[in-house]
């Protein structure tokens, strides 16, 4: 079977989405820079979007793509508020790593 006739099924997209999601999750757990942790959250959201689109194709139903819009909107709102929080923390502490947020614990 050559590459030209090779059929890429929806399963391939789901496997890829699982891999991207895992990379994002490991990034959130390992990195200290809050901005990079944020980007890893975006990676995870994108992996889920990819699986939504793959399922929309698999089930032949447009609703999966509509849900992606709502995920995008929530991601945009989350980034706006999250970055504002990071800027506010930076004003107060001069640094913005996860270790600087230790003061938040009771």
């Amino acid at each position: 079977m050559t590459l030209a006739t090779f059929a890429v099924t929806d399963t391939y997209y789901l496997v890829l989405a699982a891999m991207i999601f895992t990379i994002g999750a490991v990034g959130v757990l390992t990195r200290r820079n809050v901005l990079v942790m944020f980007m890893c959250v975006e990676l995870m959201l994108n992996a889920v979007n990819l699986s939504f689109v793959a399922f929309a194709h698999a089930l032949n139903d447009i609703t999966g793509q509509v849900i992606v819009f709502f995920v995008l909107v929530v991601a945009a709102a989350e980034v706006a508020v999250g970055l504002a929080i990071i800027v506010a923390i930076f004003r107060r502490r001069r640094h913005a790593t996860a270790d600087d947020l230790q003061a938040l614990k009771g």
Partner: protein
Amino acid sequence: MTAFLFFVAAGAALAGALGVVLARNPVHSALFLVMTLISVAVLFLLRDAELVAAVQVIVYASAIVVLFLFVIMLLGVDREESMEDRIPYQRPAAIALGVILLAELFFLAGHEWATGQKTASGVPLQGGGFGNNVERVARVLFTDFLWAFEITAVLLVIAVVGAVVLARRSGQRADASLDEEPEEVTA
């Protein structure tokens, strides 16, 4: 041709995702994120999601990443991330957890989750005389999901107001060494 495109885009998406996690410099992380987002947009196109792919490039790869880059430039990136773990063995444990998560996802993927049940609207991805991709998305978005769509507007307003309130300078100077310009008296 489609398979070739898929493997190129998938490889670029995975490389970009790894780059986001592994890059030392946050600016490099943001640029790797753009690479992943554009690759995922190509994958969306391959799965007949034209509108979503366009929105992905416009909203994610431009607006959100530019926001990230603005904040990175604003805060400065010169500080090295400390490599010692505050919780012992945090990083090895995180990688082990990631491997377990991936194994779990693959294990669950072998089970029958998708029932094949159609939603109430029943607008299919192709066929049925519903027009092109944009018309199909619009039909569902403005009928079945109209209430959620309106709530979304409220959410965005709340997010914008919250961001402005958080990022606004408060009454007193938080840190005298920041060299801020004199405060203006706000009503």
